[in-house]
């Protein structure tokens, strides 16, 4: 495997995504202080913050995978001395990096801010981490769906499904035994239930990315 080719492909994608990454990070950071307020303003801030991450994931897969296929630039790339495996690794890696920079930045900011507060309002940290992993899993699922199915209809269905999943998640998970009420505590409680939730989400990420790589690298027909 020629690693320099993979690195070049990743660098090219990250260069193309640079404004998207910066925009999502800035929008998320701008929404964080608003989401910390009481009442409707706080809700709007929370929605803006989640929209920044969700929209980033959608744009990355639609622009990076679907548009590349529809504009046939994928055919051009695969006609170069680049193997489907190299392309698949580069595409998944570039998408992951582009998603994880704002995702990681926002998560670190939330956790860092909560820890720095006195008295510490740290009880919500486990749920926020679980929610962030849920959005990461949503992104990984969408990426897998588009790379595997190559279908616009499946993409739309996937986007609708994952978006509807977020409010459902926010309604169901905080009420689960072992998680319920913990967000109001001053200390973070890493109960087995919240750790299991995060573990399942991480497993979904690994599974989706693995499947995306496996199918894309073995695809025989790109026309």
């Amino acid at each position, binding site marked *: 495997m020629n690693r320099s080719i993979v690195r070049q492909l990743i660098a090219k994608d990250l260069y193309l995504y640079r404004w998207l990454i910066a925009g999502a990070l800035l929008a998320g950071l701008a929404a964080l202080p608003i989401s910390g307020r009481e009442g409707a303003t706080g809700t709007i801030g929370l929605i803006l913050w989640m929209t920044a991450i969700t929209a980033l994931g959608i744009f990355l897969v639609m622009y990076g995978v679907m548009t590349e296929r529809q504009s046939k630039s994928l055919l051009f790339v695969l006609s170069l001395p680049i193997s489907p495996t190299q392309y698949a690794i580069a595409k998944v890696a570039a998408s992951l990096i582009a998603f994880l920079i704002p995702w990681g930045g926002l998560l670190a900011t939330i956790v860092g801010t909560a820890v720095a507060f006195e008295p510490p309002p740290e009880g919500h940290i486990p749920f926020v981490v679980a929610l962030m992993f849920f959005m990461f899993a949503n992104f990984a699922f969408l990426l897998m769906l588009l790379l595997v199915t190559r279908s616009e209809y499946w993409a739309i269905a996937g986007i609708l499904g994952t978006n509807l999943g977020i409010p459902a998640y926010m309604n169901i998970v905080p009420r689960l035994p072992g998680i319920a009420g913990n967000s109001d505590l001053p200390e973070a409680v890493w109960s087995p239930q919240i750790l299991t939730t995060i573990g399942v989400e991480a497993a979904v990420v690994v599974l989706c990315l693995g499947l995306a790589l496996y199918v894309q690298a073995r695809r025989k*027909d790109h026309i």
Partner: protein
Amino acid sequence: MTAQAQDRFHALDAALAPVALLANVTKRYDKTAALDDVTLAVRPGELLAVLGPNGAGKTTAIGLWLGLTEPDDGIVSLMSGSPLDIQSRLDVGVMMQDVNLAPELSAREHVALTSSYYRDPLAVEDTIALTGIEALAGKRYGKLSGGQKRQVQFAAAVCGRPKLLFLDEPTVGLDVQARETMWRTIRRLLDEGCSVVLTTHYLEEAEALADRVAVLAKGKLIAEGSVAEMRSLVSRKRISCASAVEVDDIKRWPGVVDAVRQEGAVQVTAFDAEGVVRKLLAADETLSHLEVKQATLAEAFTELTKEAA
């Protein structure tokens, strides 16, 4: 045979081996055969024009050669190896139809990026000069016109010093000057030993550039040969002369396909050119400026594909 002779034989064999080959290839999409038992070879240093109406199988053939799809039956080789092998594609340049590259990058960045995938590419500025895109180099790809985008794609196709170049409808949307520049570059690459596979709907382009022509229709190879051989496959000829004979009368003669009067001259298309010329001379003693031409490639193509339909 001595070892030296054997070496020479192998060297000669390698030199004559096709750079791209489809051997008895069949490719189906659902139940439709995009290619049906097609055998087609590209020889070193030649320009093979692949002609055919829409849906004839041209793009499928190129897709097979580039490893973008696999045949249901038959053998495909590229640079004496598998099209799926990266080594085979290191010597290949490609300009595909209807491709859109990243609009945010400049033409120069596209050439530089594509060059970086090859082991011994031309310098970026040399590629830009070779393909005459100096004026476009700094512009964003998304801001270019359709013809200008094709010129940048052509630059990306030749930047890796290809030994085999695939050009799928390369001059669509180009102005006359840009087309001339592209033709000149293609001829230069051919002079340097590059082989070219060209698909085009512009038959004068094939006539001007091709060493050999292959005509596909409904997934089958219906004719193959030099431009002259293709034209000779079609028995109709064009007769031009200055004559007072009425074209309506000529149309009724046996062997005449069509007759028109254009700018004072009579233009006759006929299967039996010799017989028609004899009748014309007999009918008009004052006949002058007589010319008999073989069918153009365009006429040959039309007739061949009509027969296959």
